[in-house]
């Protein structure tokens, strides 16, 4: 790769990359993101490469490892180009068939296609999968198409042309005006206008003559992995966004703060930074413009609170990752006391799109106040676990049922925790809420960073709230009293209720605690930690009351409130439960009725799972 010295050299190079990009050529694109790797994608990739070499097809057919396209439920994923046949759940054993039947003979292997759970129909082509059809893929567009370790791939699809446009024809003020006009709001939590934030930072940078920008890739929400996938699958989009931001705000140094638990993302990002530097797209005198921008990577140790911007800055400076009060805001006094602008991964990655397509185009997507797209990581009791990028304003129902494929095993939807552990839990009656910043906030949830955990009818909402409270309580940094002790008090109360030891007044005590922790905590962690409890009380108060007053867990989840027993008419004495019980709580001889000793039973539920005659019941 040559060091590009000017905008025109870039243009020539980028055009040649674009001309060489051909998605009508035979190619196997294999997801090689962390999710698919966990399911064995690397073995599949190696086997495919071997098999193709053995059959001497390697000169005609390319095999590319890509970033995560989001359909993690069905991984490892392979897309066969040019037709874009989508194969799913590939094992190494499937490789010979794929090569021999599909690549050589052009046959489609039905057994590897996605089956629509509603119609039972096989779906052949990737664009026809319902999971993708309702999405609006902007930030995730290149994931699944490009090789994230190749700058050339990113450039071929228009990568760095936004930077070129900015350097060649826009002043910093024009860039900020464009970002403001696009209506882009922060994708990391609070949803603050990105353009306005940039303007504030720029003003202060001009005053003091120095400043920093930071990409927040700490992503600590349980079950969330969209930022990881963007950095892993398309690291150059984040870098391009940051160079544009640095130019707009007049700063020359930036950091990506990323958790060390994301080794692949870190690897791909570091490689991309090197490539961009070599190509003259990052570093000194970018594309001969005279503008310098250095980008470093800082690894976080995986504390949720280090995603909070002031704690993040403390961590970058090498201090304890504890938040400090704001004001002063980072834009006033940030890293080493200098004005600092922090944005989320998705916010940065949206910038090249905003600049390339223009503010008008971008702001036509979404609702009046929430523009563009949002990536949700959809997990929990849902058929299509994965990442979905949707236009703002789509309904929760569309996201969960049309894209997410609904609830597994024919169960009913009960609630969705939206916005991560700081968000709220919405019941079925609010399934038609449009997903935008204001509508969700009005119901007690938030867009947040895009976490979405789905609960089905078998989920106990008190236990669900306890889960999130347990998370925030463990992640509280402990600096301030309301959060350090208040979250512990809330958790203990929830645990007591789940254990069947709830007392009248507990719900009021929880509400009182929640209000104090929210209003009095120092940082966003404490200020939002009570939200799951508040919303579950708001929408499922009857479940709390059933636990406290009737000593019943309606969903039959809370161990302190359920008993397992064997239905005499159904038990045929097969002894399977007895053999599987790890607590020796079951007695009975062969072909005789088995009995569970309630004292010894730990409520693990194994007997119920192993009984072939549905003879175990829970009450």
């Amino acid at each position, binding site marked *: 790769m040559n060091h590009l010295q000017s905008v025109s050299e870039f243009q020539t190079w980028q055009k040649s990359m674009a001309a060489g990009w051909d998605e009508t050529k035979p190619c196997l694109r294999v997801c090689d993101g962390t999710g698919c790797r966990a399911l064995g994608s690397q073995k599949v990739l190696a086997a495919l490469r071997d098999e193709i070499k053995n059959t001497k097809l390697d000169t005609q057919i390319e095999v590319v490892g890509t970033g995560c396209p989001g359909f993690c439920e069905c991984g490892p994923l392979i897309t066969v180009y040019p037709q874009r046949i989508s194969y799913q759940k590939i094992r190494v054993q499937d490789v010979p068939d794929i090569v021999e039947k599909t690549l050589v003979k052009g046959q489609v292997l039905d057994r590897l296609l996605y089956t629509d759970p509603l119609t039972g129909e096989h779906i052949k082509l990737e664009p026809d999968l319902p999971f993708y059809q309702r999405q609006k893929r902007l930030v995730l567009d290149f994931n699944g198409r490009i090789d994230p370790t190749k700058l050339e791939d990113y450039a071929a699809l228009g990568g760095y042309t936004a930077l070129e446009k900015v350097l060649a024809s826009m002043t910093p003020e024009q860039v900020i005006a464009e970002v403001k006009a696009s209506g882009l709001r922060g994708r990391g939590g609070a949803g603050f206008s990105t353009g306005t934030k940039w303007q504030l930072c720029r003003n202060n940078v001009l005053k003091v003559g120095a400043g920093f920008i930071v990409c927040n890739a700490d992503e600590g929400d349980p079950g969330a992995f969209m930022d990881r996938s963007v950095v892993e699958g398309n690291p150059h989009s984040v870098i391009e966004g940051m160079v544009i931001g640095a130019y707009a705000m007049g700063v020359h140094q930036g950091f990506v703060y990323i958790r060390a638990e994301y080794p692949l993302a870190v690897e791909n990002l570091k490689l991309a930074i090197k490539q961009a530097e070599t190509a003259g797209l990052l570093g000194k005198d970018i594309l001969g413009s005279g503008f310098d921008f250095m980008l470093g990577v800082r690894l976080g140790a995986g*504390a949720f*609170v280090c995603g909070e911007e002031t704690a993040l800055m403390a961590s970058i400076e090498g201090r*304890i990752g504890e938040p*400090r*009060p704001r*004001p002063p805001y980072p834009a006033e006094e940030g890293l080493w006391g200098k004005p600092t602008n922090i944005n989320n991964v998705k916010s940065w990655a949206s910038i090249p799109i905003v600049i390339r397509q223009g503010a008008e185009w971008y702001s036509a997507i979404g609702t009046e106040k929430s523009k563009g797209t949002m990536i949700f990581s959809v997990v929990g009791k849902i058929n299509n676990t994965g990442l979905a990028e949707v236009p703002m304003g789509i309904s929760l129902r569309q996201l969960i049922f049309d894209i997410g494929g609904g609830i597994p095993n024919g169960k009913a939807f009960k609630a969705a925790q939206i916005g991560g552990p700081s968000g709220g839990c919405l019941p079925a009656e609010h399934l038609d809420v449009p997903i935008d910043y204001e509508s969700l906030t009005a119901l007690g949830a938030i867009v947040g960073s895009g976490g979405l955990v789905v609960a089905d009818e078998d989920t106990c909402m008190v236990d669900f709230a306890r889960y999130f409270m347990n998370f925030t*309580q*463990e*992640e*509280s*940094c*402990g*600096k*301030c*009293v*309301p959060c*350090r*002790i*208040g*979250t*512990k*008090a809330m958790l*203990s*109360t929830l645990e007591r209720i789940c254990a069947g030891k709830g007392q009248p007044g507990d719900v009021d*005590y929880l509400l*009182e*605690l929640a*209000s*104090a922790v929210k*209003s*009095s*905590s*120092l940082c966003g962690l404490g200020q939002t930690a009570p939200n799951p409890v508040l919303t579950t009380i708001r929408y499922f108060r009857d479940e709390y009351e059933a636990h406290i007053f009737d000593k019943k867990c309606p969903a039959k989840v809370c161990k302190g409130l359920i008993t397992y027993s064997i239905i005499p008419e159904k038990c045929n004495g097969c002894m399977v439960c007895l053999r599987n019980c790890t607590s020796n709580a079951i007695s009975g001889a062969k072909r005789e009725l088995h009995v569970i000793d309630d004292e010894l039973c730990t409520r693990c539920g194994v007997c119920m799972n192993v009984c072939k005659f549905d003879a175990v019941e829970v009450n």
Partner: protein
Amino acid sequence: MIHLTIDDKPIEVQEGRSLLEACREHGIHIPTLCYHPALEPYGGCRLCVVEVIFPNGRSRIVASCVYPCEEGAVVKTNSEMVVRSRRMTAELILAGSYNTPEILALGEELGVKDVRFKLEEENACVLCGLCVRACDEIVGVNAISVIQRGIAKKVATPFQVTSSRCIGCGTCVLICPTGAFKFENVAGFQYVSPKESAYHLGYYRLGGELDLRPNFVQDIAGLMSTPEDEG
């Protein structure tokens, strides 16, 4: 000068003052635990909260020790919201320090009637961070810090072993609002330790050439006794 309204009274303060400083300058009592005029404010105990009412009518609870005085601000130091917040915070501090006289007195002052939740272990340390800041900002030694997080957080030396940095000056002992540290004289050495710990933070040799302590400790003690409500 900055003009603001505190508890319906117009007040004028120098630029750069915190709300707490403004209140104290004007004789308005605000309870505090982690604040000390000689140290950088911390914002950890949340007892100093006040209500700030914004021009759009919305209001918010803020910690006055770390909140700047803004021109035209309207502040209430004793509203229902403030009283409730402080009372719950005191109840939560009591949850961990239920046998500590200073905290029991605080609970009484702020109207805590019942401590509905208690941690298993009583601890006089309320993690106000005064000792850590004093050791760093006044003594300049930085021998102690907070370790771990959340409910497990505590003040300690690195690796919880006697620190070679600690000069045994006892500033932490003097500044601690709840007496969570102790001095111990053993065989010609003065040890400083957190009360219920199995190790010493550090020690000081009494007497002899190295005995710098007397003057030093007097200076510190002088600093510590700064009257709470100046002006």
